[in-house]
């Protein structure tokens, strides 16, 4: 990383998503004649932070090995949002119990997913799909017996800004820097990538594969739940379908960002860039007044194009 080499930059996994985000932002700038470029960034950061955070959770799970994925993300978000705001009931007094309730449910969900996958050896895709169904029922029942309203402080934290940068984004960026450090330097991060590359080799070299995989799912569950709590504050209260748009986008931002779906490698920068890219893309198409049909078609083709360009995501031929 010492010298600037264009070829090396091109081969960075996060490059294409970042380039895409910058490119789309420039197009918006040119179209609007240079006005409001900062506002667009600010809005993009405030909105896509939730997708980035959920994406980071999904990324940790996907990095733990081929086939690892969490499809219970939408149900987790919704349940955490209801549980936390149900404790708050619109008052600041319940802020901490609310956040604790949300995080607790995320922890339990992650642990339950890991239990189903490891003890019953159910493929992650189906195990988390099924646990998501169970969670949906719980959320539905709880939503009818609770007064779910976010605390004013939470709403302020998720919508307020400091020098044009939303508080929640600043906090998430700091946490992301910490995550980069954890993934690169800590024993957990090294074990995670080792398991993702070859679980048998990792086990033979003394990595606690079991504990690492459980930790990946628990971490994903808690991060996702936190995003759910924050998102509830951002939109002014939970709703039963608030999680649904996170299912596909959480997978999309991870992979467009340059994380390998086969596991063993991850990029925090890429996941952030991809979240911004997808949000800016939608803004751009809105600015151009493209209809919903064509907007989806263009989004789909761009997702495939970014993927086809990026070399890190080739599946290894066995």
């Amino acid at each position, binding site marked *: 990383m010492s010298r600037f080499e264009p070829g090396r930059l091109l081969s960075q996994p996060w490059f294409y998503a970042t380039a895409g985000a910058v490119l789309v932002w420039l197009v918006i700038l040119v179209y609007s004649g240079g006005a409001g470029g900062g506002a667009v960034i600010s809005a993009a950061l405030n909105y896509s932070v939730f997708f980035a955070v959920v994406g980071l959770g999904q990324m940790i799970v996907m990095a733990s090995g081929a*086939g690892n*994925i969490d*499809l219970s993300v939408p149900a987790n978000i919704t349940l955490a949002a209801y549980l936390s705001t149900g404790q708050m009931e619109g008052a600041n007094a319940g802020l901490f119990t609310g956040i604790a309730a949300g995080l607790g449910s995320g922890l339990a969900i992650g642990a339950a997913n890991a239990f*189903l*996958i*490891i003890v*019953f*050896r*159910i*493929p992650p*895709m*189906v*195990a988390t*799909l*099924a*646990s*998501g*169904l*169970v969670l*949906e*029922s*719980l959320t*539905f*029942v709880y939503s*009818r017996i609770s007064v779910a309203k976010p605390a004013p402080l939470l709403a302020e934290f998720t919508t307020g800004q400091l020098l044009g940068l939303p508080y929640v984004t600043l906090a998430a960026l700091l946490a992301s820097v910490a995550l980069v450090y954890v993934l690169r330097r800590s024993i957990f991060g090294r074990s995670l990538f080792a398991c993702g590359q070859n679980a048998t080799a990792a086990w033979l070299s003394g990595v606690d594969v079991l504990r690492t995989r459980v930790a990946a799912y628990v971490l994903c569950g808690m991060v996702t739940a936190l995003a759910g709590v924050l998102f509830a504050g951002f939109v002014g209260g939970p709703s039963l379908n608030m999680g649904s748009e996170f299912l*596909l986008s959480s*997978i*999309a931002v991870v*992979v*467009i960002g340059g994380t390998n*779906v*086969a596991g063993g490698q991850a990029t925090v920068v890429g996941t952030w860039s991809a979240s911004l890219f997808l949000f800016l893309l939608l803004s751009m198409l809105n600015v151009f007044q493209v*209809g*919903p*049909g*064509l*907007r*989806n*078609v*263009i*989004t*789909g*083709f*761009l*997702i*495939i194009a970014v*993927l*086809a360009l990026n070399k890190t*995501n*080739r*599946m290894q*031929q*066995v």
Partner: protein
Amino acid sequence: MRDREGLMAHLGNFLNGLGAKRFGLSSVALVLILALVFWLRPNVATYNGLRLLLNLSPVLVFTALAQMFIMTAGDIDLGIGTFVGLVDCIVAGLLNDQPALALLLLVACPLAYGLMGALIHWRQLPSIVVTLGASFVWLGLALMVLPLPGGTVPAALTGLVRLHPPFAPMPIVLAVIPMVIAHLVLNKMSYGVVLRGMGGSLAAVERAGRSTLKARMILYMMAGVCGLCAGLCLAATTTTGDANVGRGLTLVSIGAVIIGGGEFTGGIVSPIGTVFGALIMQLSGSLLSFASVPPAWQYSIQGAILLVILALRVVSGRRRTA
């Protein structure tokens, strides 16, 4: 104590025997669910009762078979549900007014699937994300064809699913015919070995002198044809088009293939099990409402049924992919 161990061993042997056939466990589960439905609602055990009960099952049967063909190659399709929605919209939005254009588009749909398979193979892309991107394309095209739910479905098509064939009601016929065809293609035809080999060892397929590109394209096109049939059934049964109607089908179709004995590693799938799995997913919803389970808990119990069936596979001692 000894008796109990003997019983467990007996149970293990019994489940092992079932495991010998890929679709064993799903067939037992299907019979069990059907028996419960008939016990709760004896009226259903008639020609017309079954016809109404399984009204929408052909859609899920075809969608699950489409997913199965993709999973044969060791891939996953996250876009099949919206693809079925696209076919539904083309039928309801265009077939009456512009039949030539509609037919052209309907023929193009499976071909597009084949091209998607070719792209995945050529650039060695992860199918899970390409199909995810494609799901946006299918949804977008569906919204362009039919921006709002509605449209009209030609009477010829709606008449087809309302046929009253002798002996078995139409949904059963529409489950058995594709099941037999898929079984013949994958398990009886010699080319089926190449197709299933795609989920095993690509190198072995190449060394046997077969084109892996061609095999993957064929699997994807067969998935496209099944998706097309699912969309036609959906339009014919609901008599309207809706771009968003198919979304829920994607994950259910994956569940159906896995319940039916399929593996995520590819190469190991059972068409018979997949159809049984689709019927189980379809019937478990009806069973729960017949048993007066509150709607809020129905999702929960469906999830639990999925987990129990899969956990039983571990008890039966079959080799599993972790």
